């Protein structure tokens, strides 16, 4: 008794391979005139391809790229592209049309080959290996074999060293990710011109894009900016919910937050001055500035780090210290110092 639910048909009801449908002659098979006109059409397509090739060369010369005119690049690219497209499409379309309209049109099927070789083939393959081993002495000459393996193991090392050297050579990479240019007393200056900012400059509802003073004097200015970029905003002090220990991190409602998204590091700078929400343009994380930049939407996991600020004796905004945590996206060693 069969137990499964499979349906087993008696032999008489097995579905037979119906084979190919009967060949339906094409117009070009029946009418030599049609065949000739197809032939002409294919030849015309090949000719169009030739025209396209020549046209591409001519266009490249006739529409030169003029350094002072970006429009000239467009013309040059456009006509060069049209020429090359015609030259390749002409060949391609002609070939397909040829095979469909004129070449032998009967359907045929090809059997799949056996994947396992015959016993004889397998034996002769093994024979080849044995012979190779005997002639080269690969297993007999241990010294040669072992030095070969060792040299193969060593050759990727230069590549690894070169890649490692893309990171900071004389410092601990973990350390580099952990600290930014900000130090106690570093002035907050405007991006891009480096003009220091007075607390009185920052009126309610303002937002300033900030870089640390002296950034442009550094050789690695871009690397530093990628970590130290800050957004400065002024809110009503009563709108800020300040947690314990951060009471003196803002200056009369002026707050500074890292601009580097804690998700994957895009610059977060879309500040809405009425809702005090900060939006990251890359994956729409939203940070609430009234609640110390806590994440209220999106894939970011941690609030933006806050830069503690105050003013110096001349009224300029300065950092109280570096950020108290690493800025930007997570990295392996982030949580163990």
């Amino acid at each position, binding site marked *: 008794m069969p137990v499964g639910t499979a349906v087993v048909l008696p032999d008489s009801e097995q579905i037979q391979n119906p084979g190919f449908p009967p060949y*339906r002659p*094409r*117009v*070009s098979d029946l009418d030599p005139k049609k065949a000739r006109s197809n032939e002409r059409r294919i030849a015309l397509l090949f000719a169009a391809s030739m025209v396209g090739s020549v046209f591409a060369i001519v266009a490249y010369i006739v529409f030169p790229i003029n350094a002072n005119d*970006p*429009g000239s*690049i*467009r013309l040059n690219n*456009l006509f060069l592209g049209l020429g090359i497209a015609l030259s390749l499409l002409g060949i391609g379309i002609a070939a*397909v049309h040829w095979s*469909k*309209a004129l070449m032998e*049109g009967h359907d045929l099927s090809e059997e799949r080959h056996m994947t396992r070789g015959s016993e004889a083939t397998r034996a002769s393959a093994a024979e080849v290996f044995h012979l190779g081993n005997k002639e080269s002495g690969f297993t007999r000459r241990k010294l040669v074999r072992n030095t070969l393996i060792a040299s193969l193991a060593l050759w990727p090392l230069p590549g690894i060293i070169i890649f490692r050297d893309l990171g900071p050579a004389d410092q601990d990479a973990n350390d580099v990710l952990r600290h930014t240019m900000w130090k106690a007393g570093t*002035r907050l*200056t*405007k*991006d*891009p*011109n*480096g*003009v*220091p900012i*007075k607390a*009185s*400059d*920052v*009126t*309610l*509802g*303002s*937002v*300033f*894009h900030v870089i640390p003073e002296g950034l442009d004097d550094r050789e690695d200015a871009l690397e530093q900016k990628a970590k130290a970029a800050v957004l400065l*905003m002024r809110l009503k002090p009563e709108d800020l919910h300040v947690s314990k220990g951060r009471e003196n991190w803002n200056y009369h409602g002026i707050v500074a937050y890292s601009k580097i998204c804690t998700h994957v590091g895009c*610059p977060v*700078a*879309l*500040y*809405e*001055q*009425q*809702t005090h*929400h900060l*939006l990251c*343009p890359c994956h729409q994380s*939203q940070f609430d500035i009234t609640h110390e930049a806590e994440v209220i*939407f999106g894939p970011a996991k941690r609030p933006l780090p806050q830069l503690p600020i105050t003013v110096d004796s*001349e009224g300029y905004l300065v950092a109280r210290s570096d950020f108290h945590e690493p800025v930007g996206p997570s990295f392996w060693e982030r949580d163990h110092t």
Partner: protein
Amino acid sequence: MATSVPTSSRRKTGRRSPLASVALLLIGLLATGGAYAAFTTSASASTPASEQAQVSEGKKLFEANCATCHGLGAVGTAGVAPSLVGVGPAAVDFQVGTGRMPMAASGPQAEQKPTQFTNTQIAALAAYVGSLAPGPAIPSADSLKGGNVSTGAELFRVNCAMCHNVAGAGGALTEGKYAPPLTGVTAKHVYEAMVTGPQNMPVFNNLNITPKDKAAIVAYLQYLDSHPSPGGLDLGNLGPVSEGLFVWIFALGAIVVVTIWLTAKPN
């Protein structure tokens, strides 16, 4: 080095003379408290009669058209409309001049629409709101001219492009709010938006972006307006969204058509 000639315009510690900080302090004081005092004390005394007439004309217009939400005396209504005391003539000129005010219906954001007032009426409204308390003034035509396009482009990329898109095509914000496209916006309105920070746009006061730099930003936007994309079809300058959609529809569509043609039986 003391002997080196300063090449950039940045202020640096140690190079500034003590007089400079005094001068800066004075300017700061004048710009805030001083201006306030000067404005309020002398306003009634020295204002010519025509300006007085304009203010009272504006007051009438305000009471008829705006006071329902913004309250008599423009003090605002809690939860409905903000106080307009101190927003300055520039804010009125921007909001009313671009048709954003009066608002058609409350929504995430006041939309731009055809202006509902004549230029004289807008000027009167602006004069009235300006008479309540000092605030940003409407920029003079001269202050909008002669900006450096490449400076403007750099400032725009730092301060504006994250919301308004590097080509000024605008972009989405949160919960239905958006940064509007800046194509075709008049120089005056761009300037006024920067000084007043309409709706959710932050304020860019003259100490953050100087009037000269604001003129540069205006010049950059005008350059964008007068120089269409050199690459041809720009698909709205919206970047990967519109470009991706275009490729999705047209390139994939073309591949589907070719596939159908390849496998179709010839006749």
